C-alpha cells in the first residue's frame, strides 16, 4: 500500500518538465509571499502599538501615571491630563449603549425569530447600509439636523422641568452636548450590535426552539430561552459595540461641543479621547503637546484592545460551542 502511494508521487511527465519553475520553485515562492503577507499583518499591529508607545514617551516621562487622573488641559502652560477625555469617552459610550442595546437586541430577535423570506433579507440589507454610512456623513446630519432637534424637543424641556432637581440634566442646555454625542453614537453602534447578535442567535440550534415549542411554550417564551442560551454571545456583541463607540471620532467631534472640562449635566458639552486628537493634532506645536495627544491615543488604543479582545472571545466561544454539535 505504502509502495503504491510512493509510486504515484514520482515526478509526472509532460509540461512540468518543460517548466520546472512552475512546480517546486513556484510553490516555494508563492508560499513565501503568502507567509510574508500573513506575517505582515501581525507585524503591522505590533508596529502600531509600538509606535504609539514610543511617541508618547515624552508625555509619559513628564506626567507619569498622574496623566490619567489630572483634569487640567492647558496647551499654553504645557500642562496635560486625560481625565476629562476619559470621562467624556466613557459616559458618551455608556449612554449610547443604554439607548442602542434594547433597540439592537429587539431588531436582532425580530430578524432571526420572526422575519422570514424577503422581509428578513431587506431588513438585513438596510441595517448593513446603516453601518456603511461614513462617519462624517452622520456628523453633517448631526450638526444640522439632530443637534437642533434634540435641543428643542429634548434638552430644553428636560432642563426646564427636571433641571433644578437632577444635576444630570441641569441647565443651561446647549446644542452640541454629551447627549447629542450619545444619540449619534447610539445610531452608529446599533448596526454592529444588531448584526453580531443576529449571527449569535442564528448559531443556536433550531432544535432548542422546537423543544421549547413542543413543551407548550408560546413563541415569545421560546425566544426567551434562545436568548438565554445566547446570552454570553449577545454580551460579546454589546461589548463589540462599546469598542466601536469608544473609538468613534468624526461624528462625535462634530456634535459633542469639544469642552475639556467635566460637567455633571449631560446637556452640556464634553470632549472625548478621539475628538481631542482629531481637533488638536495639527495645532499641536510643541513636542510635549504632540506627545500628550499621542498618549491620549495610547489610552484609547489600550482600552479598545482590551474591549475588542474580550468581545471577540465571547462571540467566538458561542459560535464554536454550537458549530461542533
Amino acid at each position: 500500500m505504502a509502495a503504491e502511494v510512493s509510486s504515484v508521487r514520482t515526478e509526472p511527465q509532460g509540461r512540468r518538465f518543460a517548466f520546472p519553475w512552475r512546480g517546486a520553485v513556484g510553490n516555494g515562492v508563492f508560499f513565501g509571499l503568502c507567509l510574508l503577507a500573513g506575517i505582515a499583518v501581525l507585524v503591522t499591529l505590533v508596529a502600531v502599538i509600538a509606535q504609539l508607545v514610543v511617541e508618547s514617551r515624552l508625555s509619559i516621562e513628564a506626567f507619569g501615571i498622574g496623566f490619567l487622573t489630572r483634569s487640567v488641559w492647558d496647551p499654553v502652560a504645557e500642562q496635560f491630563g486625560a481625565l476629562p477625555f476619559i470621562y467624556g469617552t466613557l459616559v458618551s459610550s455608556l449612554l449610547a449603549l443604554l439607548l442602542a442595546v434594547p433597540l439592537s437586541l429587539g431588531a436582532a430577535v425580530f430578524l432571526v425569530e420572526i422575519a422570514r423570506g424577503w422581509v428578513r433579507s431587506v431588513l438585513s440589507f438596510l441595517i448593513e447600509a446603516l453601518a456603511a454610512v461614513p462617519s462624517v456623513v452622520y456628523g453633517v446630519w448631526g450638526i444640522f439636523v439632530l443637534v437642533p432637534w434634540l435641543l428643542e424637543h429634548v434638552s430644553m424641556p428636560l432642563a426646564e422641568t427636571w433641571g433644578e432637581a437632577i444635576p444630570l440634566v441641569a441647565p443651561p442646555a446647549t446644542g452640541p452636548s454629551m447627549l447629542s454625542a450619545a444619540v449619534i453614537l447610539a445610531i452608529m453602534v446599533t448596526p454592529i450590535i444588531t448584526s453580531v447578535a443576529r449571527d449569535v442567535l442564528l448559531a443556536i440550534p433550531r432544535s432548542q426552539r422546537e423543544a421549547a415549542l413542543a413543551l407548550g411554550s408560546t413563541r415569545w417564551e421560546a425566544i426567551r430561552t434562545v436568548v438565554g442560551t445566547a446570552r454570553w454571545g449577545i454580551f460579546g456583541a454589546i461589548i463589540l459595540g462599546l469598542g466601536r463607540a469608544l473609538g468613534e471620532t468624526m461624528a462625535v467631534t462634530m456634535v459633542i461641543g469639544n469642552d475639556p472640562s467635566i460637567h455633571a449635566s449631560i446637556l452640556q458639552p464634553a470632549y472625548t479621547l478621539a475628538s481631542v486628537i482629531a481637533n488638536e493634532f495639527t495645532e499641536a506645536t510643541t513636542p510635549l503637546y504632540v506627545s500628550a495627544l499621542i498618549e491620549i491615543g495610547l489610552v484609547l488604543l489600550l482600552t479598545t484592545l482590551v474591549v475588542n479582545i474580550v468581545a471577540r472571545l465571547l462571540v467566538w466561544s458561542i459560535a464554536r460551542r454550537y458549530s461542533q454539535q
Partner: protein
Amino acid sequence: MNERRLQPSPWVERRRRIVNALGHGAVALATAMVLVPLVAVIWYTLREGIPGLTWDFFTQLPKPVGEPGGGMANAIVGSGIVVGLASIVAIPLGILAGIFISEYASARLAAAIRFVTEVMLGLPSILLGIFAYAVVVKPMGHFSAYAGAVSLAIVMLPIVIKTTEEILRLVPRHIREAGLALGIPQWVVVLRIVLRAASRGIVTGILLAVARAAGETAPLLFTALNNRFWHTTLDQPIATLPVQIFTYAVAPYEDWHRQAWAGALVLIGLVLVLSIILRLVVSRTHLEHEQ
C-alpha cells in the same frame, strides 16, 4: 388534586398570550426605530445635498474663505488618488494573507492571524492616522498623500483579509484535490482554480474595503491634511472629500454648509451603490456554492 394542577388556569393562559403579543410588538417596534435614523439621514442628505450638486461642484476649486461658489473637484480627485494608492498596497497584501490563512497556515497560526485581523478591524481609525504620522509624516517632515495612503491601507487590510479568507473557506475541498490530482503545482491550483472560483466574493471584499476607505476621515486629518489647490506631486498635502466635508461643515459659512451636504450626498451615494452591488454579488455567490 394532581389532576386539577394539570389544568392550566385560564388567567395564566391569557397572560401568556398577551405577553407573547406584546413581545412580538416590542421587537417589531425596535426594528422600525433602528431604521428611522437611516431614513432620516438619507432624506435630509438628498434634500439638502441635491441643490449643491452643480456643475461647479464637480469641476471647480474651493473659493477663498467668504467668497461663495467654487467646488470640490480637487478633493474628489484627491480622494481617488489616496484611496487608489492605499488599494495598490492593501489589496494584494490582503489577498495573499487571506490565502495564507485558508490554504497554508496551521490551525493555530490561522487562528492567531484571524484574531489579529479582528482586533485590527476594531481599532479606532484615528490611531492608524497617528501611526502614519509617526512613520511617514515625521521622517519626511511634511504631510503628504503617501501618509494618507498608508493610514487608509491599514484600514483596508483587515477587511480584504477577512472577506478573502471567508470566501476561500467556502470553496469546496474537492476542487483543490482534483487540481492536485492532475499534477498541477499547488500554487497554480490556488491562483488559477481556487481563487477563480472565489473571485466574485473577493471582488466583494475589495469593494467593501474601498467603500470604507473612501469614507474615512479621521486618519487623513493629520496625514494627507488638506489642500485648497490642485496637488502637483504626491509628497505634498492633498485634499480629500471626507476631510473637505468636515472642514466645511464645522465652518460658519452658509455656502460651505451647502457644499458639505452636497459632498455628503456624493459620499453616501457612492457607499450605498457599492453596498447594493455587494449585496447582489454575495447572494449570487452563496447560491452557487450551495448548489
